[in-house]
Every structure is written in structure tokens, then in C-alpha cells.
């Protein structure tokens, strides 16, 4: 097992970008490009609600923690869980400063409604994997809270999910170490991408620049 340097950790939030589009991830995480659109602004707004690290609630068997920083040495990733619910459970683990045994369940806040693709899903799986490693426990499920439907959705985390996330992170690291931004695979998802005008996906389908110059000069 390889332990990564904390400095070389990838951001957990990137997994969602990566599964949405490899180039989008590289533009954000390698090239540090960002541009907001209405979707990202809505997302920020929503997360402002969840992002209150000092807020801690205890209700009966439930301990709700917000903005919890997590990491995985094994995967070499770090990030922040919007909300983690610790539920008292005999099969759980002990927590610093708490009596009894608890099992953690991450809740990720999302704008809009449940999506068809699994780009959000893998982010939740990665959070689960971080928590499992840090707390030395097994977490069978996690939740999405979708703002548009004001509902949470339960997600069962399978072994196959974990393998997929591992594979994604490995691929991300491969690009990251080479500082390489992969070319765009243009598609319908480009229309909803906030980085569309930084990425300019169509540019790669254009004719060569030299033929553009030659044809203009020979007019």
C-alpha cells in the first residue's frame, strides 16, 4: 500500500468533476481555472447552509456534524463532508469525546434533483471510504440531500462502487503527476458545463491554424 504525501493529496470534490468530464477536472484541478454559472452559484449558496463547522447538534441517538474535514492516506485524497450523521449503534466505533458507539453516515448536499449519471455518486463513495479509513469502521450506506425535492436519498455503497472510485482516483493521479490536461470529448454535457468558454471544446475539431493562415494569406 502506498502512502501519499499530504501535499500531493487530490481533492475529493474533484472526483465528481472527473466523472463528469476528465477535461473539466483537469482545467479546475490542474490548471486552476474556474468560472461560475448559475448552477455553481446555486451550489455555493446551498453549501453555505451546510458549511458551518462550529454547528454541532445532538438529538437522542444522533450526533450531526457539519463541514467535517476528511482524508484517506491510502487513496491520497482529502476533502470536506457537508454533513456527517453519527448514529448510536452497537456495531459502531467509539468517538473522541463521546460516550457509546457510533456509525457515521455522510450526507452530501446537492442542488437540483437526483441525476442520471453517477458523477455525484462517486463523490459520496469517496467520502465513505475516507470516513471508513479514519474511523476504522464499515459504512454500508450514505445519503444525498437534494435541494429541489427537499428530500434525502439513501445510497447503498457496494464493493464495486469502491473499486470504481479507486480506479478513478488512480487515473486522476496519472494525469495530475504529468500535469496533463486531456482533450475534450465534446457532447451534450458541454452545454451545462460552467467551463465551456474556457475549455472551448469545439476548438479541437477545427481545421489546423496553419491552413487557416495560409488560406487567408492566399486570398
Amino acid at each position, binding site marked *: 500500500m502506498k502512502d501519499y504525501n499530504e501535499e500531493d493529496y487530490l481533492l475529493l470534490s474533484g472526483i465528481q468533476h472527473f466523472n463528469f468530464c476528465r477535461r473539466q477536472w483537469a482545467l479546475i484541478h490542474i490548471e486552476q481555472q474556474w468560472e461560475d454559472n448559475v448552477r455553481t452559484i446555486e451550489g455555493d449558496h446551498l453549501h453555505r447552509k451546510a458549511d458551518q463547522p462550529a454547528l454541532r447538534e445532538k438529538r437522542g441517538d444522533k450526533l450531526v456534524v457539519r463541514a467535517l474535514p476528511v482524508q484517506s492516506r491510502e487513496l491520497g485524497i482529502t476533502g470536506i463532508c457537508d454533513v456527517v450523521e453519527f448514529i448510536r449503534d452497537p456495531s459502531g466505533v467509539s468517538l473522541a469525546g463521546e460516550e457509546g458507539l457510533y456509525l457515521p453516515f455522510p450526507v452530501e448536499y446537492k442542488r437540483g434533483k437526483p441525476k442520471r449519471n453517477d458523477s455525484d455518486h462517486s463523490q459520496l463513495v469517496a467520502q465513505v471510504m475516507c470516513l471508513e479509513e479514519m474511523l476504522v469502521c464499515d459504512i454500508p450506506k450514505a445519503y444525498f440531500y437534494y435541494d429541489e425535492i427537499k428530500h434525502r436519498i439513501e445510497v447503498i455503497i457496494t464493493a464495486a462502487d469502491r473499486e470504481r472510485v479507486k480506479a478513478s482516483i488512480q487515473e486522476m493521479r496519472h494525469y495530475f503527476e504529468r500535469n496533463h490536461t486531456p482533450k475534450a470529448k465534446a457532447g451534450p454535457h458541454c452545454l451545462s458545463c460552467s467551463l465551456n468558454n474556457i475549455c472551448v471544446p469545439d*476548438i479541437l475539431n*477545427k481545421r489546423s*491554424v496553419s491552413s487557416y493562415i495560409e488560406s487567408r494569406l492566399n486570398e
Partner: protein
Amino acid sequence: MKKLLNTLFVTLPDTYLGLDGENIVVKQEEEILARYPLHNLEAVCTFGYAGVSPALMGACASRNVSLTFMTRTGRFLARVIGEDRGNVVLRKEQYRISDDEVRSARVARNMITGKLYNNKWILERATRDYALRIDTERIKKVTESLGETMKLLREVEQLDILRGLEGSAAVQYNSVFDDLILQQKESFYFYGRSRRPPLDKVNALLSFAYTLLANDMKSALESVGLDAYVGFLHRDRPGRASLALDMMEELRGVYADRFVLSLINKKVVNDKGFYVKENLAVIMDDETRKKVLKAWQERKQEKIMHPYLNEKIPWGLVPYTQALLLARYIRGDLDEYPPFLWK
């Protein structure tokens, strides 16, 4: 394509800019003169000695709104720049190209090709549009020579040769520039370029337009993550935005010169709007500067077809688009830097 937002030009002296919620407020002695939502602005440019509150500077930096301070006469003073955008990998590659004469020349020759091409078509257009007023024979000689030089440029790999060709092309173009002034000829004339200070009204207008364009270019380069101070044709000189100057070459004529010509030919500016200092330096009065800025904003909104992208964009986005294309070339997505070839 990115959306073109407004630039707020503050020309009234002794005004103070502050932040109120999501708004920028313009104050004079505690009295609020105007209020604009920050999310509609792309840039703020102040002339005179207006102060800006630290809160507003912070808000501009975090929202990527550029903030520029100029003297009342339009000379650049300072700019507030937020956290560096873009990555070190892109910038290091830019530096590597800059350190390599041949690689620099390959980029710079395309920029100069753009300059000559655009200047050629400014002249060609004039002969077509004003055939009865313009000495077509004289102009034709220049356009033919520009065409010849452009063909030579394609193979140049030495910066000195490039500068030589560029210089002689500039002399040719300048020799007929005065012919393009078709109105108010008794007060607006062009004998040659004078900068510090500009010695006639046309030069005063050109200098001002170049400053505005340079600011837009600098902001555009930074927003795509390039270093505006490390150039290919213009070599490093402390405090000089060499890459912005390189990138401006292809746009000077088609963006700034044409703009100045239309101010004169459409009589947006007139003889009375300028004054001459004791040393013959020519300076615009405040009223004229305001008119020029207004026209500049209007020009930025006009749409054109981008010749390489084949996409309709406003003129104001041309600096950004070219900066983006340069970054794409440096990153290896494109085989050459595609200059803006206007016709």
C-alpha cells in the same frame, strides 16, 4: 463564448468608490452619486485621484473584476490584481518559449502577420468605400507591399528579422494613414507617431485608445492564466507588459486605429476638445475624454464574426478570445497561434 460585461469608467475627479452589499457606490464628499451592481461589471477604470475602499478592492479581486487606476490624462498608474489565475505549468511553458528565440519568433511572426493583414485590409476597405476621396494608386502600392512582407513572415525564425520587417511595414502603413482622415482635415492630421508626449490631436487619441486596449489585453491575459509581463517579440523589461504589447500588435490597427478614425470622421470629437501645453503636448479635455470612453464602450458591444472560431462575438471580447487561443496554443491544443485576421 464568455459574456461581455460593462466597464465602469469613473472620470469625475475627487470621487471615492466604496462597497455597499453587492453594489459599488460612487461618492463625492459623503454624497452618493451613483450605485451599480458589481455582478454587471467586468472592469472598473478610474481617472483622476479617486480613492477606492479596501472592501471594494477585495470584492473586485474575488469576483475577478479588474480595477485600474489612471491619471486624469489617461496614463496608466496601477492595477489591483487578485490571486493568480491559471497554473504554473502553463506559465512555465510561456517562459520557456520566451527564453527560446526560435519558438518566440514562431509565435511573434503570427502576431505580426495579423497586424500586417489587418492593416492591409483597413487600407483596402478605405479604397473601396471612399474610392472618390482616396488616392487609390498610392494606397495600392502600400497594400501590395504589405502583402509581400506577409509572405516573407511565414518562414522567419529570428526576432531581429521579424522586427525589421515589422518596422518597414509600419513605415509604409503610417505613410498613408493621414489619407484615411476624411473629415476635419484642417485640425486632424497625422505626420507620424509621437508618444511622450503626443504632439497632435490624432496622436493624443491614438495614445489613449492604445492605453485602453492595453488594459483590456492585460486583464484578458491574466484571466486565462498567462503572465502579461513576459513576451515573445517584446523582450522583458521591468514594468512593461510585454506579452500584452505583443498581443496588441494585431489589434492596434483594426481595433484602435479604426476607432480613432471613426471618432474623427464621424465628428464625435472636434478641434475644440483639445488643448496644447507650452511644450506643444496635446491633451484632451475632460469632455472629449468622456465622449471617447462612451464611444469605446459602444464599439465593444458591436458584434463581429471571429475569423478562426467562426463565431459571432462582440468586439470587446476579441482580446479575451485571442488570449484564450494563445493559452490553448501554449498548452499544446493548437498547431500554431491563430492571429485575428480581420477583413
